[in-house]
């Protein structure tokens, strides 16, 4: 899982100051909401980008999530967990956006090769300091396959995988977003990993053969 887990003390401090900002916003201080937006925008963007797979949609999801959070702030009961709450709103809206996007635009998935901030690019992460043309070609090909495999997941599978694997969300949190039971949410995570594995294993573990699982030796 990639999500950085802040220390318990940090988490508590952020949650407490979130709660104060929420109270002040509800009392009519709009600038207090600005603090919440600036504090949580990056995290929400990361989730939205991984769910939608493109920057434009991710930015729209972030804006819409904060707008909806502001409008519904009066209904927000657990005021200490604003981060988790806005996360959930963003995930819900991202699902809507993915559906809408599919309808509007049947364009093929664009490989996001030229995005800025690609410090984690598989191409740049190759251990060999001087990558050979073959290695470069393989990594570009692998990335395209990974993007295609993610795009081939259903909305719920992609949401469950992103929230669990990359964002480290609890199964109950995922179940709330998918509006399903915890068992069903867990199954959706399994299904997503199984599909990704099926699609990517030939490119990742070239030469390695999966065994017939669940067997006895």
């Amino acid at each position, binding site marked *: 899982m990639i999500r950085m887990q802040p220390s318990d003390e940090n988490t508590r401090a952020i949650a407490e100051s979130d709660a104060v900002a929420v109270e002040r916003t509800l009392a009519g201080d709009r600038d207090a909401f600005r603090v919440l937006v600036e504090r949580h*925008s990056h995290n929400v963007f990361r989730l939205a980008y991984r769910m939608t797979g493109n920057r434009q949609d991710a930015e729209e999801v972030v804006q819409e999530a904060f707008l909806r959070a502001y409008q519904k702030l009066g209904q927000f009961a657990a005021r200490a967990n604003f981060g988790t709450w806005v996360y959930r709103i963003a995930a819900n809206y991202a699902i809507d956006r993915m559906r809408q996007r*599919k309808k509007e635009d049947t364009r093929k998935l664009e490989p996001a090769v030229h995005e*800025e*901030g690609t410090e984690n690019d598989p191409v740049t992460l190759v251990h060999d300091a001087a990558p050979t043309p073959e290695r470069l070609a393989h990594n570009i090909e692998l990335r395209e396959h990974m993007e295609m495999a993610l795009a081939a997941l259903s*909305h*719920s599978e992609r949401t469950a995988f992103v929230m669990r694997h990359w964002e480290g969300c609890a199964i109950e949190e995922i179940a709330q977003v998918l509006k399903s039971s915890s068992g069903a949410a867990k199954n959706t995570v399994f299904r997503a990993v199984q599909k990704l*594995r099926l699609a990517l294993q030939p490119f990742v*573990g070239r030469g390695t053969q999966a065994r017939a699982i669940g067997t006895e030796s």
Partner: protein
Amino acid sequence: MKHMTEEELIAYREGVTAERAGMARHLSVCEECRAELERIEAVLAALDTLPVPYPGDDYGQRVWQQIAPRLPEKPAEWWQSWFEPKRLGALAAVAAMLVIAFLAGRISRHDRPGNDVVANKEQIRERVLVVAVGEHLGRSEMMLVELSNAAPRDPAQKHVNISTEQRRAEDLLDENRLYRQTALQEGDAALASVLDELERVLLDVAHSPEEVTPAQLDKIRQKIEAQGILFKVRVVGRELQERQKATTPPTEHNSSRESERNKA
């Protein structure tokens, strides 16, 4: 030695299992399962290298600038959410059910004055549930049948648009959840179980892409067929019809027809 299944290995890797200690013990002695876990981890590790663009240090400020002009002066009060169109719709449905239950109660009280009021109330409640769930199952069945028969409008088209079925599945999902919970409260485990299975299928349909390839559509169909959900929905629907007949007090018209049938 029994090896771990793929599901167990994924659950272990993704930390969604309560059996973690036992699995770790097995992995420490089973080379094959360890190798299998490594293969899963290799795929996940490759996915972890997919980049997320960094939106910039001032991203939070930019988001604020973009949304600030669109924010109302003050957030809505909690009670204002009750007047949202979606909530009003749900409230209207609940109110309609209450009115039906009340009217049904009055009618049946006239039929049998002063006798076993508590049992009567329970019957009425069951009747309302039976009628409502029966209709819900009918609508779900229709949607699933239409989905099973969906085909591209033009044979040359590569995609099938299932957005109509999807929207219906979304609407049915909310109702289904309500009925499943009610069935559980009423202690009707069999009905709750079928509604639970139906919910999973509805969820799958609601979360599928709006346009699917014939192969994807086939997969959805196979899933519907494999779970036998259509058959179960039909059987339960029929059972509910029977129960509805059994719990409906015979009207004069019905009873005279019944006696005619008996005579015959």
